[in-house]
């Protein structure tokens, strides 16, 4: 699949792109290791890991809450470097770490706020004041599972959907 976002029209003042140059690592805390994991994250990323559905920009990584005691670390992909290996070392004994860079297709919708169509289409309250910058939701739209977060700086949204559903999801996104 080449860039799925090609040819997608977006609403006024918005644009949709596919983020393909990224490495995504799924991190899940080991049983009873949450406090120590937060300490390790503070040392490595300067922040504890979010306990609620929030996304944090932490230097080179974007840390997205992905369920209880679970996170996605999104980093820029670099040849010859495997962020999941680095994270596994950083969190050795404190978390299980899996490279999921290819599990999801990530779309970025650059927009200062949600369009009317997007608000209608989402099954959660997506209005400007309800789904705030930094908020994360794992939900479904139109029978498709999706993780969505609003960029902490308010400049847009990112949608992550399972890679093998990505064409259907792209079609949906193209309509909102």
């Amino acid at each position, binding site marked *: 699949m080449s860039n799925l976002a090609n040819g997608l029209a977006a609403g006024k003042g918005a644009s949709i792109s596919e983020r393909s140059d990224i490495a995504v690592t*799924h991190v*899940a805390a080991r049983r009873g290791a949450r406090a120590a994991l937060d300490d390790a994250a503070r040392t490595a990323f300067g922040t504890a890991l979010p306990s609620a559905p929030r996304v944090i920009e932490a230097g080179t990584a974007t840390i997205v809450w992905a369920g209880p005691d*679970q996170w996605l670390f999104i980093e820029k992909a670099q040849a010859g470097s495997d962020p999941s290996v680095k994270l596994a070392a950083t969190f050795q004994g404190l*978390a299980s770490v899996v490279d999921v860079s*290819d599990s999801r297709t990530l779309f970025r919708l650059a927009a200062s706020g949600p369009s009317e169509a997007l608000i209608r289409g989402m099954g959660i309250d997506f209005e400007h004041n309800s789904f705030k910058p930094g908020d994360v939701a794992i939900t479904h739209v139109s029978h*498709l599972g999706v993780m969505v977060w609003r960029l902490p700086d308010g400049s847009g949204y990112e949608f992550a959907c399972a890679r093998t*559903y990505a064409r259907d999801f792209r079609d949906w996104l193209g309509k909102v």
Partner: protein
Amino acid sequence: MTQSQSFRVAGLGLVDRAQPLDFTFDGVPYTGFAGDTLASALLANGVHLVGRSFKYHRPRGILTAGSEEPNALVELRSGARREPNTRATVTELYSGLDAKSQNRFPSLSLDLLSINGLLSPVFSAGFYYKTFMWPASFWEKLYEPMIRRAAGLGRAADAPDPDIYDKANAFCDVLVIGSGPAGLMAALTAARSGAKVILVDENFAFGGRLISDWRTIEGKSGSEWVNSVVTELASLPNVRLMPRTTVFGAYDTGTFGAVERVADHVAVPGPGQPRQTLWHIVAKQSIVAQGSMERPIVFGNNDRPGVMLASAVRSYINRFGVAPGRTAVVFSNNDEAANTIDDLVRAGVTVAALVDTRPMLPPAIKAKARKHGIRVFEGAAVTDAVGGQRVSGARIAAAYGSINNIVCDLIAVSGGFNPNLQVTTHLGGRPQWQESLAAFVPGTLPKGMSVAGAANGSFSLAACLREGARAGANAAAAGGFNNGSASAPAVEDELTEVSAFWHVDGAKHKAFVDQQNDVTAADVRLAEREGFRSVEHLKRYTTLGMATDQGKTSNVNGLAMMAELTKKSIPATGTTAARPPYVPVSLGVLAGEHRGKHFKPTRLTPSHDWAKEQGAVFIEAGLWLRAQYFPKPGEADWLTTVNREVKTVRSAVGVCDVSTLGKIEVHGTDARKFLDRVYINMMSTLGVGKCRYGMMLREDGIAMDDGTAARFADDRYFITTTTVNAIKVLQHLELCRQWHWPDLDVQLFPVSDQWAQYSVAGPRARDLLAKIVDKPFDISNTAFPYMACAEITALGGIKARIYRLSFSGELAFEIAVPARHGDLLMRKLMSEGKEFGAIPYGTEALGVMRIEKGHVGGSELNGTTTAADLGLGKMASTKKDFVGRVLAQRPGLADPDRPRLIGFRPVDRTARLRGGAHFIGKDDQPIAKNDQGYMTSVTYSPMLGHWVGLGFLARAEARIGEILSAVDPVRGETTLVEVVSSAFYDPEGARLRV
């Protein structure tokens, strides 16, 4: 068309006379105005006869001006857009509208089936149940076809609906349902306090009764006041206004279903525009302000065109500027309806009489009547309408028994008002009878719901405005918005007295309770006589209230009549709780976009595009599309292709996309312990760098799924599930992890989409893969034996995993790369494999080879088979507990006589086998007691040159060599088969370990 709109009244109404609209009814062209409904436009043209009734085919007109209409139902539009049973009273007129009357033959004015009316003494309620029984065989052949020919009103379209439907979601603090005086005040009050408000109204115009009745508020006309409120609401960012939107149902936890008719008021929706949208509205608070509906009085011929609800008469006059007749009789039991004489006079309609069932009318009304020279009958009733296809008079029984025949073409009737409380009952609330109003009012309400105005039984305008404001303020306050003022504009008081009156005694003609279903007063009496006295029995026996109007104009009348007959109170007789939908809603909008190819999502594997380029034929496998086979030019049929694919794999090498397998990473210090508990076999003893086949049971001891587990580190396993069970297994494992054994240190990661995975199978598989994997990885049999696994790189540095697994029975590997590289890997495998004769193969060849090897698949893992049934009983460890172990030991499941999986081949090797055939002794009769098992999977084996099959057979292992009949009566075949080992091909497994 000089007579066009001759009933339009100058100076009245809100229609836009600058915008005439052409339309046709039964092929006759007419003109109306923007702002008309089809009903108002027909009335403007003097058309009253618009339909025929269900049973007796009686001529019917327009009874109401709203969604409760029982009679004025038409087929709207034509062809694929034909909409049967469309209520003319709520159909917004558009240019080119095309409507036809229903249920008549050959024409509306001459309907031959009206002969049914003459047979009505026979066609009483429930007569079906007493007749058509003899002879029994005539029911399907004669009686029922006859009944079905007469069934239904309109015709469904006979082609797929060409329009699109949409779904949408909205969240609010306060949902206000209905935009009459109460709803507008509620919305305004709540909105001014800052709460997020949604205001919906089923009509295309906001205002409810304020645009139908002649009222003033704060010195403005009703419609001017409505405009000012709507303008303010529209200006507020926290308000969503939704006209043409019907809340059809209240569901749990503040969820409401609503349908917005986006494009029903145009001939054809615009490009990309949905016809309708289904809204899920989630509201913290809701206010039901849906007003009330007038109910008719049951009298003789009360269904004649020209008999109309008084409120509808006012609506046609005031909102649409149409006089629904020239000479009217008003027949009522309440003040509000009696006041209709004002509106009639204003519209220039002669009022021939005011007939009121009450012995004493309020002096103000009497004085008004006297002023206009209207004859007043107190304590009187219209016993019958006179006329056939149109009212031509009213027969009035005066208080002292004298009969007066008065000429008229319109009878405006009112039996009082029923609050529209349906939505308050959807979640189980029971309405309460209020004697002073002669009506049911809302009873207990669901959490977060309140009711205001006429829907609450508060009929005066002042009360509506007051209650609306209060409800709006309260609802906002419940959401923490406290700065609203609950004040409402003051308006002059009005008379709203009513005295219960349901039906007229002494009617000469049939008197209808349910007009659409032709349920008469006599039918209600018959039901009582035969014991159908509970209101539910009454409905079901007579069909009262079961028509498309859902009994809005008939339920309470029927109930009251039954109460009278049984000498019980109305509340003791029953209530009128409703179920969704509040008004009928189209089936298409409930489905939305999920139809046709979009019924379910489509999952595509990473090399789907490549397979498409190869001309693969795809097959649905759950939500996946998988390559089924890859036909080559010149191949006659799919079997030729599949045979070639199998033979090539078994002689050279083939590649099959197995990316659809479910894949889960199981990590943590207790991963080994965890897997031991969920698989029947040991996984803790699996060495790092090794794979093992595994089986999971359900807790009831039945096989759930099979797959492989691979161990990449002490605390890191990777397991696969079957394609169809991927989600189910993950959910099960999460239950085990979170609920059964929360103390175990285990983390689960679903990674099905992360990896593109390919089975590379055949004698040349190693040769091919040696060109794919990066050095120094040693792929030799010694370094990488059967059931080994490794994390490697391939194609020059791409992260990869390789497993020495074989489903085909050949030397085989599965190689996985991150999904983005799947397409590349597939192309490389093909180009690098050319020298070895590599081909792609699909699910069909995969299936052939697994049957040749006797492996179980979905047909065997059918939810009723145990591990032992599948021949895998020995896999179960006796050294540990696992899910399903205990209950698998129940006698019924441990019974050694249960059918076991075994192989079959036809005795006549040219015969084909059939999945689903049952096994019986070869000389036995094909009857149930001889049934010994069934065939689950069959295939033509190109290697063996005949068909082979797998199936379950009682005491199978002991019966190798026995000849049985495989009977397949649904395909008319019986085949002699021999019981053989299920390992048809290479039973020693020599080929896969090389």
